[in-house]
């Protein structure tokens, strides 16, 4: 037994859990419609959308908040 106090000494355990596999629906951004308002970037609870509107599908859980918040309906949720 090496884990006195059940401490985790190796960092990165959260990053190893690729929560992207939890998705039923996947967000797809239509850049032709996008007005660069940054709503999806701001509202994403997982920090999975960057300012270039690239989506990190390794960790995106498919919650769909980006699609709901997009004022011009540029984000479509497609079934995986």
């Amino acid at each position, binding site marked *: *037994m*090496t*884990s006195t*106090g*059940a401490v985790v000494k190796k960092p990165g355990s959260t990053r190893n859990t690729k929560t992207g596999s939890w998705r039923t629906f996947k967000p797809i951004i239509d850049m032709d419609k996008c007005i660069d308002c940054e709503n999806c970037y701001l509202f994403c609870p997982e920090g999975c959308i960057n300012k270039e509107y690239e989506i990190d599908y390794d960790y995106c859980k498919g919650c769909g908040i980006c699609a709901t918040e997009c004022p011009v309906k540029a984000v479509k949720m497609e079934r995986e």
Partner: protein
Amino acid sequence: MVLKIATANRAVAEAAKLSNVNVIPVYPITPATSIAEYLAKFVADGEMDAEYVRVESEHSAMSVAIGASSTGARVFTATSSQGLALMHEVLFIAAGMRAPIVMANANRALSAPLSIWNDQQDSISERDSGWIQIYAENAQEALDFVIQSYRITEHPEVLLPAMVCLDGFILTHTVEPVDVPEKEVVSDFVSTYKPANAILDPENPMSIGTFTDPNYYMEARHDMYNAMINSKNIIRNVNKEFGEIFGREYDFVENYRCDDAEIIIVAMGSVCGTVKDVIDEIRREGEKVGLLKLRVFRPFPTDEINAVVKNADKIAVLDKNVSFDIGGALYNEIKAKLDVDAYGFIIGLGGRDVTPEHIRKIVKETKKPEKDVQWIGLREEEI
């Protein structure tokens, strides 16, 4: 009688409803939360004529319970683990003020490390609070023991609160068939609480919860000690009457195939079901093994245990709790009170699943014991 399929939490809530409880001060905590939720629903739907008091912590829940009980109300609450630990000081006050409160405790491990899963460290750690403690093997027992507890706690010769312990998740969140008795029959059985002592009655004023100097404190504690001893007779009578009315007989202990057993396992709570199945298997292989299920932990039924285990060669005591350096609480009490060749096994802490292989290992280790206390089911690899 209505056979329902329900979780033990549901069964416990039904029992409180059937027992005509007047006041329910309760604070939610996993895995006891759904007891509070069912009761809230019963009250909101008008199925229960009770005062449901939402409080800000378990400490307050037990404080309100004492206050309500002191007005002569019948009180029920439920908690678990850290919630029970937070109640710690108030548990002693409830018992010391001789308030006949009944509480369900969903047994769960104590932090740290943080765990929401089952073991019995929480209630065992309140062993000396002056509460009667009864452990349920299944949802049916959880329901029956809550009903029985009102008759025991409110008896003038007892007046100590009672804790009905049910294993978290393993019972609280398992659905299984439960016989829910008829309302009228339970109402007759539990009757109404007629408080004579420690009651806030304007017609008959008395001071309760007083400051006690060294001239009186010890006598008050001695009264409690005697009340716990007296409770044995009351529990015995309530068991008998309950059996006659409801058709389910309970005793302080359950003797499962112990009469000719060379090795007897002693355990409390839900693990007893698994142990019984394993004993049936082992007996088919020709070995004489039995189970003594301890139902009542406080008062401690020394004579009843001794009557069952005295002829066995060896005793294996299972504890879902640990007192560091000396093993589980039940093991130590058996060693202290009985002249038997007993060995202690720590099992199932923090939700570690107790499998038939573990029980078989315990039987094997008891035959040729290497240590007084062993931990069963530890991971073998480094973590």
